[in-house]
């Protein structure tokens, strides 16, 4: 009997320890990134690092300014949002409210399949199809802000569709029926009652999409051109924070390497802010709904 209760308690302890793994993982990730990244920021100077427009690790003296890449990451994310969010939300509305059942059985798995395509395949497809298309039709060399925005816009679609659709479905049916009974058309009922009622869920979808787009690496590095500059038009190339890490980590040494890690730290902080706002949205909607 005592043996049995010992085993019970021991296993409970084991389960508890495994549950702590995620806390430990986040802690170790934070510690290692910051320990390796902060000294470089201090050495370069925080303002020179974040606000500097010149990234020239092989110059003497070298300059490590990532301002252009921060702006590029924001630009690319914005482009992806402009393309992905309207299409994604409207698709979610279609799936939740307009789609005939037989079509839904095909369309829903299709949107999930879109999430399964590996990012390297998206990048390769973009490089082989979208980049030449832009080069031929809009000028420039094709690898551009526009190309990255289109591919990322497609990549965030499944996230936006999935999260928005479940938010739309969570709205009580009585809202919709009430609007119909008052004489509104089906479309009006959906867009004036259901969509507004699900806005915190839809907002969560957009924020999640922003996180995806900001963190995407392999697709962007192949199609964005990777020039360190602030693009002045859609067909200009740019280099995101993520691309900078992948491109140069392989051969970097010393301060250059540390500066790349610090680039990762900046990206990490951006993502943490997004995760935090995500949780704020979630807890707010839980309180209200």
């Amino acid at each position, binding site marked *: 009997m005592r043996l049995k209760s010992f085993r019970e308690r021991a296993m409970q302890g084991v*389960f508890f320890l495994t549950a702590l793994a995620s806390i430990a993982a986040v802690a170790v990730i934070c510690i290692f990134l910051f320990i390796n990244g902060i000294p470089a920021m201090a050495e370069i100077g925080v303002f020179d690092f974040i606000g500097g427009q010149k990234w020239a690790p092989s110059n003497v003296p070298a300059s490590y300014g990532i301002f252009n890449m921060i702006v590029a990451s924001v630009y690319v994310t914005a482009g992806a949002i402009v393309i992905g969010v309207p299409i994604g939300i409207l698709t979610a509305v279609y799936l939740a409210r307009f789609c005939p059942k037989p079509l839904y059985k095909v369309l829903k798995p299709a949107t999930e399949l879109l999430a399964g395509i590996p990012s390297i395949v998206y990048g390769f497809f973009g490089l082989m199809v979208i980049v030449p298309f832009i080069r031929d039709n809009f000028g420039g060399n094709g690898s551009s802000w526009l190309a990255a925005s289109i591919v990322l816009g497609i990549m965030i679609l499944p996230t936006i569709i999935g999260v928005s659709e479940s938010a739309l479905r969570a709205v009580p049916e009585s809202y919709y029926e009430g609007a119909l009974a008052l004489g509104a*058309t089906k479309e009006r009922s959906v867009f004036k009652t259901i969509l507004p009622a699900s806005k915190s869920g839809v907002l969560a979808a957009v924020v999640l999409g922003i996180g995806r787009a900001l963190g995407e690496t392999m697709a962007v590095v192949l199609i964005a051109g990777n020039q360190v500059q602030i693009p002045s038009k859609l067909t200009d190339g740019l280099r995101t924070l993520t691309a900078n890490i992948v491109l140069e980590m392989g051969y970097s040494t010393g301060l250059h390497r540390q500066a790349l890690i610090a680039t990762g730290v900046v990206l990490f902080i951006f993502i943490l802010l997004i995760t935090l706002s995500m949780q704020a949205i979630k807890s707010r909607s839980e309180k209200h709904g």
Partner: protein
Amino acid sequence: MADNNNSAVIDDIKPINKVTFKQRMLSYKRKPLSFVMLLLVALAALISAAALVFIIVYVLVRGIPNLTPELFALTYNSDNVSCMPSIINTVVLTLLTLVIAVPFGIGAAIYLAEYAKKGNKLVKLIRTMAETLAGIPSIVYGLFGMLFFVYALGWGYSLLAGAFTLAIMVLPTIMRTTEEALLTVPDSYREGSFGLGAGKLRTIIRIILPSAMPGILAGIILSVGRIVGETAALIYTYGSATGYATGFLNSGRSLAVHMYVLTNEGLHTDQAWGTAVVLLVLVFAINTLSAFIAKKLGNKKG
């Protein structure tokens, strides 16, 4: 007899809650904006579906003719750029990652679903951290894996470093899906087991885990899909050596990394298309299997 009468009456009644096609067109004529919205919504769905079909068909059409026997030659050289070693490496990497991540993921989910008290601060923290992990981009995992496993622990670019990095990456997925699966097991199962005198541990292992198994499996297979498709977290942890990774501390390239290297070099575009097909088919097969298992669970319950 009375029933028959009733049904006859019901047949005569015309439904007033059904809108005929003509009525609907009339209402659209009165409210053109509604019609525009309908078109927009349908167009968006069409674009989403078209994007998927276009990508898949394009990759298949360009890639399938390039699926030559040389692409699957047993040894890699710079002429055949065989993807065989990278396929084997991916399988080994996937297995090792699961061996590391699954016990932690399932254990944590058991704790959260079966032991933790509701409203516990620590439980809340665990959930928050799992969500944070889920949001971290794979390149940051790669960076961390390089700093911690490759350099701090001195493993170098290796199978072990790659597997541990990916294990942390898929941990939140396994945790979440397992916990969801555990929560769908009806409480009556637990009560029945307790009522028969089984302890908590025995109930979990003999009753709850088997009932939740399809859901857990679906989650694990979903993680396999992510592992197979992953590139950014592996380049600087597993490395990109072209041969078979035969030991824990050997470097190797997974299929996705192989594809990245091919694309980046730009010398073997045809083979890259072929590799893209292999990757796509693999990932889709894995995801379909996961959905199939999850659906089976749903059917059983309903």
